[in-house]
């Protein structure tokens, strides 16, 4: 048993217990009266007792926080300041934007313009006090194409549906038929034009869900013949002969457990059982880089929302931060006591959340590699994470079928969402953060009222002061809907820019 790392962890590190001062003193007195020195020694040796002042917690409060491999997180662990605010949106002139809309509906013109300007203005003028410095983490410069994409995004955002308890999103379900090879990962691009699936037979397949087919760039010799000055050079470099609805990327030699599109849709990352992360070009549909560092299976990989950086985590218990142009990791985040099962970037790209098989969620600062938050409370390995779009909250889902909501700024659990009966593989907030969607192995998509869940906490000062959780009795009140598919586990969820919910899963009968 000497080789077992988990056991080693138990031996070397102390189990953390949080006890109120009164309880601690009672325990101490009791043991001294009974002369139970042995037990006292054990406590001294193997337990770390984190004492806090004030009222002892109720049993349900303790239960809700327990479950992690190494006990609860210490109070100090969650003390550090986290800049959870969003970065300032780069100023982009939106000149052409309104022209066609004006032509379309002249009546709606004055109404439509106003709110847009307001929302834009408020973002750019006021600097969020909780936001990190704009250049805290060097981010890649925006290219022209990125700006175009941003403009598209804004356009779409104006057509976005306001969601709420009375206005539930429509759900479109993408089923991967005949997935005998076992669908293991799915990702959808931000603009919902491409879907990629990772399979147990170590292939990655990319589909186009728009009428635009996938085309590869012409070969080098053909490219040299093209007139580079021409207007439609971007169109000319594409090889029409390769157009098809889906492409298969071969390269891994183990099941592909995680995939992620780059925000600009030019690249795709995939990680696999073979211990590598691969970067694929969606222009040529070939592998560009093979990042080796994890020697064990890599469970998850994700691009930063600003591109360039990406993160991976796997069986070796280390999360790594990479940049696409470095073949070695920039940061290594060590601290988890078991496999890192999922990783997510904070919307401002300054932080990284990792969920682990040791049943904790950790938030890491990318700048200095510190672990700023440890969230305990799950009773099983965590398989999904999602940041709210405003960056304040984090949702996590685990094999125990529960979704937990966390306040990042204060380091608190806010809510526990019970309802699923199996592992939750997908979590996603709607674009405006009103609704949280969760997808699970139990073949259901459930919608939760995120506004209501977060509202309670904002007003509740008491919880914030003591750090105790007050979970509402019935989290089902937050549930807005349950949608069952026939026999398809939901393994990915995605809100389009107009707040249409896309769900994806593989349908395979025998296994």
């Amino acid at each position, binding site marked *: *048993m000497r080789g*077992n790392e988990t056991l080693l962890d138990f031996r070397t590190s102390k189990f953390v217990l949080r006890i109120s001062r009164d309880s601690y003193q009672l325990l101490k007195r009791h043991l001294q009266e009974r002369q139970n020195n042995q037990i006292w020694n054990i406590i001294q040796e193997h337990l770390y007792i984190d004492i806090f002042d004030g009222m002892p917690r109720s049993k349900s409060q303790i239960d809700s926080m327990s479950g992690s491999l190494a006990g609860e997180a210490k109070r100090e662990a969650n003390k550090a300041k986290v800049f959870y605010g969003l970065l300032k949106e780069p100023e982009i002139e939106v000149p052409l934007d309104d022209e066609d809309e004006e032509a379309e509906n002249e009546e709606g013109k004055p109404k439509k313009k106003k709110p847009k300007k307001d929302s834009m203005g408020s973002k750019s003028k006021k600097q969020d006090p909780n936001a990190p410095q704009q250049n805290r983490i060097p981010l890649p410069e925006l290219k022209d194409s990125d700006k175009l994409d941003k403009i598209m995004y804004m356009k779409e955002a104006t057509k976005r549906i306001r969601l709420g*308890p009375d*206005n*539930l*999103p*429509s*759900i*479109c*379900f*993408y*089923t*991967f*038929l*005949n*997935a005998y090879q*076992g*669908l*293991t990962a799915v990702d959808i691009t931000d603009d919902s034009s491409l*879907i990629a*699936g990772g*399979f*147990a037979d170590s292939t990655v397949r990319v*589909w186009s*869900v728009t009428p635009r087919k996938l085309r590869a760039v012409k070969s080098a010799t053909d490219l040299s013949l093209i007139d580079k000055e021409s207007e439609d050079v971007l169109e000319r470099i594409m090889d029409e002969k390769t157009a098809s609805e889906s492409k298969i990327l071969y390269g891994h030699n183990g*099941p592909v*457990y995680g995939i992620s599109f780059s925000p600009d849709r030019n690249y795709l990352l995939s990680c696999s*059982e073979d211990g590598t992360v691969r970067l694929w070009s969606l222009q040529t549909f070939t592998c560009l880089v093979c990042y080796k560092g994890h020697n*064990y*299976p890599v469970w998850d990989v994700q691009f930063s929302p600003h591109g360039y950086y990406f993160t991976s985590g796997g*069986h070796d218990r280390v999360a790594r931060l990479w940049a696409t142009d470095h073949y070695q990791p920039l940061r290594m985040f060590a601290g988890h006591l078991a496999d890192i*099962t999922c990783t997510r970037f904070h919307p401002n790209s300054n932080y990284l959340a990792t969920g682990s098989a040791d049943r904790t969620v950790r938030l890491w600062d990318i700048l200095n590699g510190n672990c700023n938050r440890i969230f305990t409370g799950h*009773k*099983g*390995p965590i*398989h999904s994470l999602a940041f709210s779009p405003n960056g304040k909250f984090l949702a996590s889902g685990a*094999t*125990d*079928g*529960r979704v937990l909501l966390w306040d990042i700024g204060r380091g608190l659990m806010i809510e526990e969402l*019970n309802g699923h009966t*199996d*592992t939750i*593989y997908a979590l996603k907030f709607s674009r405006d953060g009103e609704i949280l969607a969760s997808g699970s*192995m139990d073949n259901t*998509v459930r919608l939760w009222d995120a506004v209501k869940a977060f509202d309670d906490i904002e007003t509740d000062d008491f919880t914030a002061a003591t750090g105790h959780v007050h979970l509402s009795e*019935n989290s*089902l*009140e937050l*549930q*807005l*809907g*349950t*949608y*069952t*598919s*026939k026999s398809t586990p939901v*393994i990915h969820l995605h809100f389009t820019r107009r707040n249409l919910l896309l*769900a994806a899963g593989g349908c395979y009968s025998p*296994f």
Partner: protein
Amino acid sequence: MAEERRPKPCSVILPTESMKAIAESMGVGQLQEESCVALSEEVSYRIKEIAQDALKFMHHGKRRKLMTSDIDYALKLKNVEPLYGFQSQEFIPFRFASGGGRELHFYEEKEVDLSDIINTPLPRVPLDVSLKAHWLSIEGVQPAIPENPPPISKEQQKTESTEPLKAVKPGQEEEGPIQGKGQGAANAENKGKEKCVVRMKARSTHELSVEQQLYYKEITEACVGSCEAKRAEALQSIATDPGLYQMLPRFSTFISEGVRVNVVQNNLALLIYLMRMVKALMDNPTLYLEKYLHELIPAVVTCIVSKQLCLRPDMDNHWALRDFAARLMAQSCKTFSTTNNNIQSRITKTFTKSLLDEKTQWTTRYGCIAGLAELGPDVIKTLIIPRLSVEGSRIKAVSEGPVVSNIDKIGADHVQSLLLKHCASVIAKTRPLPDNSDQYRTDYGYLGPMLCSHVVKARAQAALQAQQVNRTTLTITQPRPTLTLSQGGVSGVSGPRTPNIIKVPSSLTLPVQTLVSARPVTPTQPSPPATKYIVMSTSAAAATTQQVITLSSARSTSPITSPAPSSASTMQPLVKLEHGGASAGAAATGAGGSRPVQKYIVVSLPSAASETKGASLTSPLPASSGPAPVLDSSSKTDRSDSPGASGH
């Protein structure tokens, strides 16, 4: 949920005997008890560790079932060479066997005939992965399309209609009200399951969306329209579409009104179409019609017993409609009759009453008899056969007496053939031999002699069928012919087990052809969960020896009762003849489910050697069983619980 699924702390440790057995198989003879204990602890720990790691791969593979590949990857993590060649098509590749007070799990390795593999056509290339999109929900409402599960499951419709009070009990309101939030009450029925139980109001409203109204219009038009292709399509849709629950009341009213009108107008074609609609509705697996039977049953019964169903009763074949409707009636009796509604007894009463009525017309009489006859042999026996002589004289009066009308004559003919058809099969089963024409006449009157010839025919057919049944059972129950060498042709074929009684031929040598020439094979299905592996002997010679024979491979050194695999040959078949309690002669003719059987129970351990089971089994067999080919042809492997082996 989380609490329930949390694994219980377990401290299962492999038994030390296994360690010894494994050591023996490795060539280590004497292993001390202490080292066995240490080893078993270590091995158990390692196995658990690997299982835990394999679970991780299962979770990340987004599966609920652990696969052999997960174990392989877990071994790879530990830098251990994976186990090659353990890919299995089935979930659990092990077979279970019990006998002699022991239970064994073993890895079945069937004998494969290479020529068969070469000769079989290539399997179809599996389809490529493709993407399919459908609406799981539209603005919070789940549309009723085939891709989505039916809005209200059949069980629920059933409980709703059979136990209406249960729905409003306060204790039933589990999580219903919460789910309904945010949707209009009218839509509520489309949605989650629990909600419907709680909302009484929602159950009574059946609002149709515009699409549904269009669909209803299209379907009803197609069903009674003139285009047969369209009708087939529409009926297919009714029979399979999962989202029809909302439209059921409309459909049932449509049918009942349609029958009402068309009976008056004697429109036979339309009546047939409407009955086909009823059939389609009944065939739909997602619908439970109980609530609409009050409309449907009168319509169906009308089609059975109505005096006149068509304009030209002497020309049109309205008898077929009566037969069809009678079958429908029987089907709904079978499905929906409960102690509460007493459908079957009420229907039976209705039929009997008009059957007993002297003035009943031939058409109605025909319908009554058909309706009763479809309800099963018991009804025929108690209600129709006693009436045979009365009906017979009535028929006689028409056919031999002065010609009244052509219509009556046709009617009498049809009633006669109907009676003969249904009664003959029942009489053939119940009446003892011999079939004497005169005896029949005294018993059944005018119809007696005709009945007699029909019964004789029925008996002959039954005998023929029994023979066929016998053959099919032989082949069907042999999905894995490990023993019989001559049966390579049927390997891998498994069909639904016929519930027929297995009639074992008394002859010792069964022609091989019967085994190979299987009935046209039903599509290959996953083999039923096999718990037993029993070889039944039919050999008369073997049956006389009633002691328990245990056979073991000649080279095997370890005692048979030990579970350890022998070191020399890993194959160790134990053949045991169990005392069946009766002689083989009885077994040969026995037709009851409790027929005593002589059983060979073959318990075999995984074999690594190329030795075939058949060969190793036959070589040490006592002389009484005869040479190998005889055993092969006369013994059957039966993996499913055949009635004869039910004692095990």
